[in-house]
């Protein structure tokens, strides 16, 4: 499947990925409205981790053996047949946070401002390229078909 690859060498911690992710998952999908007017404000589904000059955007890895899928008691967490992405059906989610407990990457967040549900990357379902990748100014995020070496960058 196509996955988001993180090239931490070129992440400049500008956090534009977070901003565009939030806008993508807002109701209006308009940047000013999403930040200024919508309540509750939408959440970014990824997080930029930083320590000194090192930084990278962390989002769901859409694991082949996904611990969150196993741990989910309601079946909210499921795999999309077509793309292979791990998605959360927020209508089914009861907010038990088991997925958060078992995720080895810490890529799932609690949404407690809106509906109490697990909030995670959906690879911008329906978009050809996720918005974080499309808006990364330094190509630190790339959306590539997985290769056996696990590194899709040139």
């Amino acid at each position, binding site marked *: 499947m196509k996955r988001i690859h993180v*090239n931490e*060498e*070129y*992440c*400049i*911690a*500008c*956090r*534009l990925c977070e*901003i*565009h992710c939030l806008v993508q998952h807002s109701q209006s999908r308009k*940047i*000013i409205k999403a930040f200024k007017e919508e309540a509750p404000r939408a959440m970014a589904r990824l997080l930029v981790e930083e320590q*000194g*000059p090192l930084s990278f955007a962390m989002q769901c890895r859409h694991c082949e053996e996904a611990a969150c899928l196993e741990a989910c008691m309601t079946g909210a967490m499921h795999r999309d047949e077509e793309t292979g992405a791990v998605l959360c059906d927020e209508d089914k989610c009861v907010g038990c946070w088991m997925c958060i407990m078992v995720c080895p990457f810490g890529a799932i967040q609690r949404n407690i401002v809106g509906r109490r549900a697990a909030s995670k990357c959906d690879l911008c379902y329906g978009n050809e390229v996720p918005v974080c990748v499309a*808006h990364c*100014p*330094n*190509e*630190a995020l790339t959306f590539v078909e997985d290769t056996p070496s696990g590194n899709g*960058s*040139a």
Partner: protein
Amino acid sequence: MRQCANDVHAYDPEDDWVYSEESRCVGCHRCVTLCPTHALTVRRTLLDFRSNANWTADRINSIYKQAETGGILLTGMGCDQAQPIYFDHLLLNASQVTNPSIDPLREPMELRTHIGRKPGRVELSENGDGVELTTQLSPQLTLETPIMFSAMSYGSISYNACLSLARAAKQSGIMYNTGEGGLHPSLYQYGPWTIAQVASGRFGVHPEYLETAAALEIKIGQGAKPGIGGHLPGEKVSADVSKTRMIPMGTDALSPAPHHDIYSIEDLRQLIYALKEATNYAKPVGVKIAAVHNVAPIASGIARAGADYIAIDGLRGGTGAAPTIIRNNVGIPIELAIASVDTRLREEGIRNEVSLIAAGSIRNSGDIVKIIALGADAVYIGTGALVALGCHLCQKCYTGKCNWGIATQDPYLTKRLNPNIGSRRLSNLIRAWSLEIKEMLGGMGVNAIESLRGNRDHLRAVGLSQVELDTLGVKGAGQP
């Protein structure tokens, strides 16, 4: 706010407001470019002095700064003063009726350029199947298009910038130049596309360095600062830079103004032949000088000293750091320098013995065509290449706080330049300019860049004095 290395923006959590300290802004546009809502703009500050054509704000502020510090004012990039730009007074010719123009999309067009000494005459011998060249040719550099990346050292620019240049040179079949910063071991793989510089500081020069490169260049001078040496501030000498330059970490890298072993053309000849000897006469050895008043006789001497090419850097050439007063006042424009050198070498009958490379603010493909018509073989582009990498000409290279990750060694900043993007953008630029050169050549009815070289009949000038026309060897527009 997070992108500014000059600390212009600050967030006040009490007021929930981002404030700007305008006096620190260098106008690099980093924040403007990255702002997702296009909410930022950079404008000239409204505070102005009483209007005075003689005492401009620049000159007044310079005095304030010097009265405060007592020091030499530094700057980066090329001359920003309104010195005459002869390119803008030159116009190209095109074919109409009496000679046909050529369509480069349908007919072959040759941009390939060979840099090096050409034989005065060619001898052939016949053997069974055909003819064989018996003249021994001097080593040549082959360029797919007459453009090269100018000398910019590792230290003055970041590793990612060097890597972008090296990769783009390989992709485009041209050369980049190490400057006097030595060569990082991981860039040895780009050796066939590398010109290695030997400058007065001899930084990073060792046998492997000379062996790896495709050509060697003795740097005598630089257009932005003719007659003075180089200075890489200690803050930019990181562990990697110190290893590559072979100097202690954190120390200032000072290149002396002269080479202390070159006080004459004869001394230069010794160094040229020492380098040729060291590399088994397999590589062209060039000499780079700044365009100064008597550039023509100097170039003639360099040609006779055995150089395979002469690179001439004009008044408007760029730099990572130079005293402002030197950058703005010393040297002559590249157009006049190339024209006078080409004329002189032709008069002496030695033009074939040396290639001429023009540098010093080549801004577009039109400038390239014009300078080749004035007599250059190829050009070096420095500032143009950096602009392709994102440079916005804020002229703060000497501070080491380049917000675009180019002229800096700060790990927070260098990662902003992704060499995958950088090399792609540089290759695109070279491709685009090459296509434009072909269009212009085709329009003139010329199908090879060789046929344009020194062909000043393809140029006409507007708004120049007779002295300037004579130096350029160009007729006024309207003269047949």
